[in-house]
């Protein structure tokens, strides 16, 4: 009897934990600076969250299935570099226009998919720890982009950049494309996670891959698909990233992997796998970008302490939702 009364409360606490955190941040931001809730600021924050957000949705599936991918930040930098090189070299033949942009997008998607498949194949076919495989590919992609850029910065041709720029800056009804794409990815991710066999299989594998195997789930294939999907989403994020500043260098995408993982965990997905929540990941991403936005908008603390504040809020957000489970 006590169990049945406790269960709904427990569930709601773990669900509203991150939401409460987000609301608290929004209230704090609005009190500290009147421009915080201005349309421009909201669009800025959402658009800049889109890169990490799109990647974090893919990461939610990987982590739910008991995996991990540390290579996404370097992968994004490498794909951005590759995309810029291909578009620049195709420019004389194709001219400034939609074909060259489509070519760049195709390169990004194909590159992301291939990179994700490569990670997934090594992890599933060779049976090596995801942590080690993706730690390795993280170093490889980071070095490759430095090498492609000759230690400097790869820049998109100026006329092409002006043509491609609207993909980041403009959109429909004042909502820019990165936000729309992010929203679309989230909706699709939520449906796949909740309403498809694939989503269920991810959670089953993350809980116990042996049981999943005996329940005739094709464990290796599902795992491979989570990495391939994540790679593809890294490609999508890169398509949105390149038009922003039109450049890629060794400093691109540094620590994106940790931000994405942090967002996933803040959102309530279990790091060991077995349970994932796509909409929670969105809240996690928003919490992370709001913290730095608020710190920039106020002179509340020394900028030297920005990292400490972020770290404290990340831990607090996770404690908030774990507390409810401590009672079990």
């Amino acid at each position, binding site marked *: 009897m006590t169990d049945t009364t406790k269960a709904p409360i427990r569930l709601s606490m773990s669900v509203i934990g991150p939401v409460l955190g987000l609301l608290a941040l929004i209230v704090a931001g609005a009190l500290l*600076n009147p*421009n*915080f809730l*201005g349309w*421009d*600021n909201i669009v*800025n924050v959402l658009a*800049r969250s889109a890169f990490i957000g799109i990647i974090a949705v893919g990461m939610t599936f990987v982590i739910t299935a008991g995996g991990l991918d540390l290579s996404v930040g370097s992968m994004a930098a490498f794909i951005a570099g590759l995309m810029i090189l291909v578009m620049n070299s195709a420019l004389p033949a194709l001219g400034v226009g939609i074909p060259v942009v489509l070519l760049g997008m195709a390169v990004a998607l194909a590159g992301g998919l291939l990179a994700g498949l490569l990670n997934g194949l090594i992890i599933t076919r060779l049976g090596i720890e995801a942590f080690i495989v993706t730690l390795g590919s993280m170093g490889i992609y980071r070095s490759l982009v*430095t090498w492609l*850029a*000759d*230690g*400097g*910065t790869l*820049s998109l041709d100026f006329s092409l950049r002006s043509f491609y720029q609207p993909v*980041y*800056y403009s959109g429909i009804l004042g909502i820019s494309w990165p936000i729309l794409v992010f929203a679309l990815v989230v909706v699709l991710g939520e449906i796949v996670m909740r309403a498809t066999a694939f989503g269920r299989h991810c959670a089953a594998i993350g809980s116990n891959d042996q049981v999943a195997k005996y329940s005739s789930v094709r464990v290796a294939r599902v795992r491979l698909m989570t990495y391939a999907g994540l790679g593809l989403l890294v490609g999508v994020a890169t398509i949105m990233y390149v038009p*922003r*500043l039109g*450049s890629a*260098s*060794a*400093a*691109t995408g*540094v620590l994106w992997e940790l931000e994405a993982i942090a967002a996933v965990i803040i959102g309530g997905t279990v790091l060991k796998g077995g349970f994932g929540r796509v909409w929670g990941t969105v809240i996690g991403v928003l919490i992370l970008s709001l913290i*730095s*936005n608020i710190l*920039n*908008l106020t*002179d509340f603390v020394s*900028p*030297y302490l*920005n990292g400490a504040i972020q770290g404290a809020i990340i831990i607090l957000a996770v404690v908030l939702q774990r507390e409810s489970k401590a009672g079990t």
Partner: protein
Amino acid sequence: MKHLASGLALAIALSTPALAQEAETRVIGVSIPAATHGWAGGMNYFAQTAVERLEATYPQLDFVLATASDPAKQVNDIEDMVATRKIDALVVLPFESEPLTGPVQNVKASGAWVTVVDRGLAVEGIEDLYVAGDNPGFGRVAGEYFAKALPEGGKIVVLRGIPTTIDNERVEGFQKALEGTNVEILGMEHGNWNRDDSFTVMQDFLSKYPQIDAVWASDDDMAVGVLGAIEAAGREDVKFVLGGAGMKEMVKRVMDGDAMIPADVTYPPAMIATAIEVTAAGLVSGAPVSGQFIIGSVLITPENAANFHYPDSPF
């Protein structure tokens, strides 16, 4: 007799150059941080070209060039250079002052010449030669430019680099140069010498302050991010952005008379080439080169920009 004499002469003729060469082959080790950002990329480029040039010019000099991605790797590099290559001189741009001080001290104790570039060591008096840019001067030149460009005063925002002594010295120099003027610094935030970070910081500055007259981006990479944010916001109030370091794209814009980038302040990555050249000159010629070589920060304007434009460098 005759044969013996000519044979002897031949032997001497053959052996002398070989002997002389063996005695004079000197090894110079160059240890620098890897190309992890634009400025370091330029520095790597200038180090490589200096080494190539000197190897061609002086056959009696050998170079070992190592790039390190973190301080621990750099310590290993330097220890390897001493152990396996027996270097006669070390040119080092320390990743961080503290962890590199001990290892460089050991190199000095082994009798080698030590040239330290850009970042000083934690203990004074180890290096024979110190080559560096002028960080307080970098800030001062920038500050003086703002004072001159905004004679009526104005509101500006400042983007700072990664929190380091270098950054602190620059900002102090900048603030000192603005003392007594009507230029008001609205806010300062760390853009970490990174394009993406400075883009978001500038977006937030633009949301926070309705009127910004100019921006001290303090670095050309950060200036790229700042310009992107201003352009996206469509703000007309920002009159100009002053970067720093001398990235070729920015120098080009100064050269072309771009109103948003009217000037730049040098902090040349080529200073590593200065250090290698002077060290080599000291080893080869015996001319005295110990002491300090401070490379001043210069204001790049449309008039002199051509002198600072290196189209072949990656930076």
